[in-house]
């Protein structure tokens, strides 16, 4: 049983001891220097993830999900980015690790599945070569062995006649197959931490299901820790143990899948859930997308970053939403949310908000 921790810069994760978190992020802050000013893409994020578990990170695009993951892999460009806080992988500090050390970990201990396999795979090299490359680098395998490995991996992700396809170029593959190849690429070195950045968004439902199964099997076999980034709560329900809801570069609510989906506390989460189509919906029930757009991270609104779009801001007395930023309040059981609404109001509202 794992728990997420409070939004305190430091301090050990509470919850059942003994399960050492494999990945532990503390007070992560990522800032970009741009022509127009400083962008706080991630602003004080913390979470833990033990082996064999899956953490879902949800939020609209631009909420800082991908930035967080790139920070974990250390892929940000130091010239324009400042990353502060701690990222501990199996107890090793990554934030200030030397480049070479990170290179040894990437694709090996920790690897990433990128969202758009069309742009994420190089058009210039065969799929096989791209899969074999990290294997050779990290295991020092021979060209031939690496190739056999590539074929094997393609087979495992369910690509028919892999020994033939291995020499094809990405543009010869269909979208789904490319995504599988992308996954094969990420798994080729049996990573212990897998970051899946919306791996299924671009795919149709059947393929999506297959890939999710694939990831599940993998986790069962190797106890891989998975960070699953998506804005699709439907998928979250299927694969995740805990969920972390991000908005404007910060965590606004977190808890177990059950908690978040059954009894969400934060109006933003309500919004997300509200905008989620369900099998149970009757067809004429309209979707209710969250009104407005995500705020500019250049000049984030004062107070609660969500208040400009929050339908309930007036129910909070003396305008606190506009002036005071709500803290991420722990509620035990690893549960936490950042909202000024009093709990009782929340409880009354929830059903209406999510039905």
């Amino acid at each position, binding site marked *: 049983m794992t728990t997420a921790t409070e939004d305190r810069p430091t301090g050990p994760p509470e919850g059942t001891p003994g399960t050492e978190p494999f990945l532990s992020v503390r007070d992560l802050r990522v800032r970009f220097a741009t022509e127009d000013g400083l962008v706080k893409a991630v602003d004080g994020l913390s979470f833990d993830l033990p082996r064999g578990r899956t953490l879902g990170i949800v939020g609209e695009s631009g909420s800082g999900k991908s930035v967080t993951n790139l920070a974990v892999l250390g892929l940000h460009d130091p010239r324009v980015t400042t990353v502060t806080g701690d990222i501990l992988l199996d107890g090793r500090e990554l934030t200030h690790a030397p480049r070479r050390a990170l290179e040894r970990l990437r694709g090996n201990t920790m690897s990433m599945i990128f969202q758009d396999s069309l742009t994420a795979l190089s058009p210039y090299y065969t799929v096989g070569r791209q899969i074999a490359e*990290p294997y050779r680098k990290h295991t020092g395998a021979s060209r031939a062995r690496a190739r056999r490995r590539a074929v094997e991996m393609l087979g495992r992700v369910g690509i028919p006649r892999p020994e033939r396809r291995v020499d094809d170029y990405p543009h010869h593959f269909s979208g789904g197959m490319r995504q599988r190849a992308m996954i094969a690429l990420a798994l080729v070195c049996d990573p212990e931490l897998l970051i899946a950045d919306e791996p299924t968004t671009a795919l149709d439902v059947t393929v999506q299901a297959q890939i999710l199964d694939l990831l599940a099997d993998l986790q069962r076999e190797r106890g891989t820790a998975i960070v699953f980034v998506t804005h699709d709560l439907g998928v979250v329900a299927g694969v995740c143990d805990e969920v972390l809801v991000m908005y404007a570069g910060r965590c606004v609510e977190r808890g177990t899948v059950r908690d978040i989906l059954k009894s969400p506390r934060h109006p933003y989460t309500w919004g997300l859930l509200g905008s989620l189509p369900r099998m149970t919906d009757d067809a004429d029930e309209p979707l209710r997308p969250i009104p407005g757009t995500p705020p500019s991270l250049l000049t984030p609104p004062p107070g609660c970053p969500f208040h400009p779009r929050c339908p309930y801001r007036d129910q909070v007395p003396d305008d606190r939403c506009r002036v005071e930023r709500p803290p991420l309040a722990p509620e035990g059981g690893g549960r936490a949310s950042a909202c000024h609404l009093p709990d009782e109001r929340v409880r009354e509202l929830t059903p209406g908000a999510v039905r």
Partner: protein
Amino acid sequence: MLRFLVRRLLGAVVILALISALTYLLFFTLPSDPALLSCGKNCTPANVALIHHNLGLDKPVPVQYGEYMAGIFTGRRLPLGNCPAPCFGLSFANDAPVWTILSSRYPTTLSLAVGGAAVFLTVGVGLGLVSAWTRGSLFDRLASSVSLMGQSVQIYFIGPLAIYLLVDRLRWLDPGADPDWSHDPAGAVGGLVLPCLVMSVIFWSNYSRQTRSLMIEQLAEEHVRTARAKGMGRGYVFFRYALRGAMGPIVTLFGIDLGSVFGGAIITETTFGLHGLGQLAVAAVTQTDLPLEMGVMLFSSCAIVLFNVVIDASYAFIDPRVRLL
């Protein structure tokens, strides 16, 4: 591939036909009469008429053009003796077959173009790569400002200066000389150093700037990021992934520059007094030597067109997604 070649070559033929026709017809809008340039003191009407006949100028222009173009493939019998294929006519100025003249001249231009291109590609792309690698460093800023200067000088400005300083005063370099590869390779190289350098300056700056930004662009590509996410080394990613991606545009750039390289060759030849096609072209025009003018025009446009085909073909090797048709 074959289909591609056929299509492109057909296109080339059309282009060349148009260019040649334009050149030939426009020539006759000039008021000057080539005959009067070769009759010396004997410009009696009779003599001029005779020369007109000898030069084949007594026929209607379209007929002349037809015969000229046909002659390239079939060869011709001319009043001044016959002219085996490929017959670009006999020079008005000295009755020599244009083809022999051309073949004695193109080595210079070719050496100049190839040499210059070699210099500005290696120097330019090289600098660009280093700048991209050490982006933001002092070197980078230095290189880009140097490139800027390079892009801003002109052959006809630095050429004479270079001769004045490096050759006449300091005696560091040989003055430009026509290469004679078969007999004196060393001398050929020596004579090409300065011209190639001068000519390359105005190009390499552009290439270093473009290469730099292309590389930086490529380094930001997602598939390059993937490569980094795979844990591939910095150099590996830089050269195997980013450079591979930047190659296409660089080649395109080069293809576009082919024409300018030739143009640069002309000015360079004029500046260094080399005997290339450029100098030949200027001579042909100033002497209203129609066959020579045609020869040079066709020869050089042909070269440019073919080079372009080669370059387009090379895309297929750089980028597997490109299919030639």
